[in-house]
């Protein structure tokens, strides 16, 4: 079961990375980041059977942090929506070199 769980977590993580790199909607990108965090959670739970109980403790903290991050992230997305009426990152181009 260990190998399967690790593979699944790697696939989920890769899906998340691909989503962040390919999608251009800020909310979808943010969801993909959450997917990456949850892939790590799966990894930690799977290995904690062999590596020690700290893995499960880690997961609790990661979930808490992800919730806090969602609060801040959505607030930032709302504040930018007020300026542009859009959450498509291609529209945000005031800052460029």
């Amino acid at each position, binding site marked *: 079961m260990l190998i399967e769980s690790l593979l699944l977590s790697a696939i989920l993580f890769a899906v*998340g990375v691909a989503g*962040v790199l390919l999608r251009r909607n800020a909310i979808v990108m943010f969801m993909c980041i959450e997917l990456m*965090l949850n892939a790590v959670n799966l990894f930690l739970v799977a290995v904690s059977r062999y590596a020690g109980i700290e*893995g499960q403790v880690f997961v609790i903290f990661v979930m808490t942090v992800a919730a806090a991050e969602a609060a801040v992230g959505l607030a930032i997305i709302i504040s*930018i929506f007020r300026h542009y009426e859009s959450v498509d990152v291609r529209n945000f181009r005031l800052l460029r*070199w």
Partner: protein
Amino acid sequence: MQIDFSNYLDYLWALLPETVLATAALILLLYDGFARKNASGIRALAWASVVAIALAAVANVWLMGVQEVGRTGQIAIDGFRIFTNFLFLGAAALVVLISFDYTEREGITQGEFYALLLFAVVGMMLLAGSRDLILIFLSFELMSLAVYVLVGFKRRDPRSAEAALKYFLLGAFSSAFLLYGMAMLFAAGGTTNLGLMRETLDAGAIGALALVGMALLAIGFGFKVSAVPFHVWTPDAYEGAPTPITAFLAAAIKAAAFAAFIRIFVVGLGDLHVHWERLIWWLAMLTMIVPNLIALVQNNIKRLLAYSSIAHAGYLLVALVAANESGMASFLFYLVAYTVMIVGAFAIVLMLAGQQDRRQGLSDYAGLGWSHPWAAAILSLFLISLAGLPPTAGFVGKFYILRASVEAGYVNLAVILAVTTLISYWYYLRVIVTMYMKPSIEPIGRVPWGNSLRAALVVCSLITVLLGILPSWPLLKARQSVEGLRRVVERVEDSNPLTQP
């Protein structure tokens, strides 16, 4: 006093500076809920946060007399932590001092500005002092979440919101990489404690899991310290953020990320140096070359300083690759020098920019040397120091990093450092030439220099010059504070057959 973490109260003592600062930040937040929202109210909050930072510094002085038992406690009480704590507190105090006039000019009356700043400092101090992967991740997020909000603090300004979004998305993205790397190291080593991990991860028999974990960690840290090719967010975030926060990002946040970088790679994974040095070597090389070339064509002063700060991350990475004790000492020395000069430079930029941060172009600085001689002179001092010309702190710092990298056998990196420094003279001197030799197009007019900002500038320029002229005492302190950092367990005594019964 000795601390061995047998009693839970010991954690409170070991975390006294952080506790003081966090309590002060909570009180500030609570007080702000009832305070009147005007210029004098925010001024009082700013003074209160200066007092809080001073109290935390006193607690940090007390911590110098505390001994820890063993080197595997979750909270490290060593010279490295105490030195970096002073650095973070000093940088935060300077940032608060330069924020006084900024908040007044831009009409920021929300006291959360200072509370969030203090929370970010708590995160940084925890980051530099923790010896456990869980705690490192938590303090990273404590620091980052506060700073995401600070970058987007000017809600009426679309540039600020855009900078916050870019910084947030890439920061959270990199946190996921960091976390996956930590999880893999945990799986390979069977522990989250860095001191114990050093024992369980054997350089001779290292598996793929630990190697991939180290690579992912390096990617995550690469984003956080803005190493090339993970630097794309940096210029945008620096340009759009409120200028005091830009100074904070460039100085303190980068220093904290580097402190954790060192704590994990040099202390926790110190025996695996052969496996990670190539990777960090490439990061250091790219981070020195690319931003110095891009900075040559920048016309916005904040962006130019942002690229300069990326280049400085490259110089600091050289000290990290060297990973010997003189490397660590020169790293700490350079951090102090870099902090004062970048905060000072951004303080001048902040004042000259005027209402709504209008004037940021290089052409606005034409003729400044004659209309505002003091501002131009001080900015030139910081730029010369950033460029690394004698007799300033930047020169001495670069010299020590060069020496450490040659000592460790990385002559090629030292050569690249010297050549890129030469290239960087061009764009630093370009600003100075613009200030003194070009006629002014649009006069800047009177600039109101507040007393707190003057104080911060005096401190920054004094330290910049003093470190350049009398570097031996600070360098000695830096060397003392990294002594024994790499030695986790007294291996020498243990492995000697004569001392064993």
